[in-house]
């Protein structure tokens, strides 16, 4: 693995075609087709229960971990079919990282071990690279200066916002191309939120980021494109500017102006 520097041109293009997904007999997504450019931040907005998390979890095949889940359609990552039966989802998830709503550092691990978790769990850590990797990932997550003197203390000893940045560092340490973020700031206070937003912007370009958010200002601040989902349908997907200033669809306008949702 190249620890020094990321080359700017990298993968991470995602194309979904007619994703239909749900649980048991209940269809949640009714055919979502989307093209996501590499290195861009894409925001996913829509009212609660419309299927944003489900869609996100289809992209790294976490959806199928729910026993009752089903999915049809196609997802391609850099032209490669994600749902190819030959492809082990384990390898996919190393390329498509995920940050969850609630910060969830592993309680039994130190800050340092949390950063390295993705590699130690999968027996891929080279001891000689560990220190550099920790520093790089924490730096990328804008956390290094705050924790460099206490890497050995438990991950849970950090504040909520720091924990979330630690989780981002943990995802970055496995060197993914794509980062999926499911409401990463909803458990954080405004200051911590601002820091994570800055972080997302600094990661754009190097990573393809798809972020679910309920916060319109946040979507406007961090993303270059925004998708509006409603009841499992993709209503509108366009430049963030366009969505927020002159949406084509009446339902999009109603939603962003707060008429429902």
């Amino acid at each position: 693995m190249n620890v020094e520097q990321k080359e700017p041109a990298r993968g991470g293009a995602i194309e979904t075609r007619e994703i239909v997904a749900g649980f048991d007999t209940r269809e949640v997504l009714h055919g979502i087709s989307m093209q996501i450019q590499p290195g861009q931040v894409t925001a996913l907005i829509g009212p609660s229960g419309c299927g944003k998390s489900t869609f996100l979890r289809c992209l790294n095949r976490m959806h199928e971990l729910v026993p009752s889940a089903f999915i049809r359609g196609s997802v391609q990552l850099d032209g490669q079919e994600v749902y190819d039966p030959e492809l082990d989802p384990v390898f996919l998830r190393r390329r498509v990282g995920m940050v969850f709503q609630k910060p969830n550092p592993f309680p039994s691990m130190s800050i340092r071990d949390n950063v390295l978790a993705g590699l130690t769990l999968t027996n891929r850590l080279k001891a000689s690279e560990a220190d550099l990797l920790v520093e790089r990932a924490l730096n990328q997550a804008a956390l290094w200066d705050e924790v460099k003197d206490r890497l050995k203390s438990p991950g849970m000893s950090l504040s909520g916002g720091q924990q979330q940045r630690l989780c981002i560092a943990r995802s970055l340490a496995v060197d993914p191309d794509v980062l999926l973020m499911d409401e990463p700031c909803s458990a954080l206070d405004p200051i911590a939120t601002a820091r994570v937003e800055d972080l997302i912007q600094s990661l754009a370009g190097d990573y393809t980021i798809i972020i679910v958010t309920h916060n319109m200002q946040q979507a406007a601040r961090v993303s270059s494109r925004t998708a509006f989902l409603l009841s499992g349908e993709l209503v509108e997907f366009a430049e963030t500017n366009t969505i927020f200033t002159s949406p084509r669809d009446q339902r999009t306008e109603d939603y962003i102006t707060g008429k429902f949702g």
Partner: protein
Amino acid sequence: MKKNHEIWYERGFLLLCGFSVLLPLAILFYFVAQVVMDGFGRLSLQFLLGFPSRFAEQAGVLPGLVGSFYLLLITGLIALPIGVGAAVYLEEYGKRSRLATLIEVNISNLAGVPSVIYGLLGLAVFVRALGMGRSILAGGCTLAFLVLPIVVISTREALRTVPQGFREASAALGATKWQTIRGVVLPEAMPGILTGAILALSRALGETAPLVVVGALTYVTFLPNSLNSPFTALPLQIYNWVSRPQAAFAANAAAGIVVLLILMLAMNMIAVILRGRMQNRR
């Protein structure tokens, strides 16, 4: 405002609850105090390090102590890996399979089987069928089966307390199911698993009946020197002394009980501390 009779109901109920807590505690306290008073005089280094004797004043508890120690060692080495493994299978893999449901029902039933029955099982399987004879190995195996359900049940409970979010976080990092279990779930559940293990072992420490059935001796003047060695255990030694008519032996029995109680108390303390640590982390 509450009506008068409701208040009285409430007070009466509280009184009843308090009484039902205090009564058993008081009886227990009386018993422990009695035993300590009877046995304290006999407690000495010579008692701990001595062998049984026809003379009560010279008798010691060492073969029982050492026997119990080895028994626990054997029991732990057998019951813990099997029990934890079974629990991991049931909780993490076999959730909805028919086999798992079958095993599950049976494990709950097994936990309620009287310990003498385990003794009979040990006699039939380990002593006779597997030809272990009346050895400390057969005793340890029997106790291992006795506590196996406890280990399985407490481990499953510990596994269930690990939030689903950690399994998801690990999966999202590209870990396989087994890597997640080994690297995240088991470490998170470890304090709970250890607590259960200690409680299981302290149960094994106190068991007498199955060891009698398996053929443990009650008067042993040597220490076990191999897995095939005949043996005794602390509770059996106590039982032996209690059944003697002379009053001096009754004092020995009381002293032996004090030793047993201290050991059990220590083990349970460790379990409580572990549990406390686990809760602090959350």
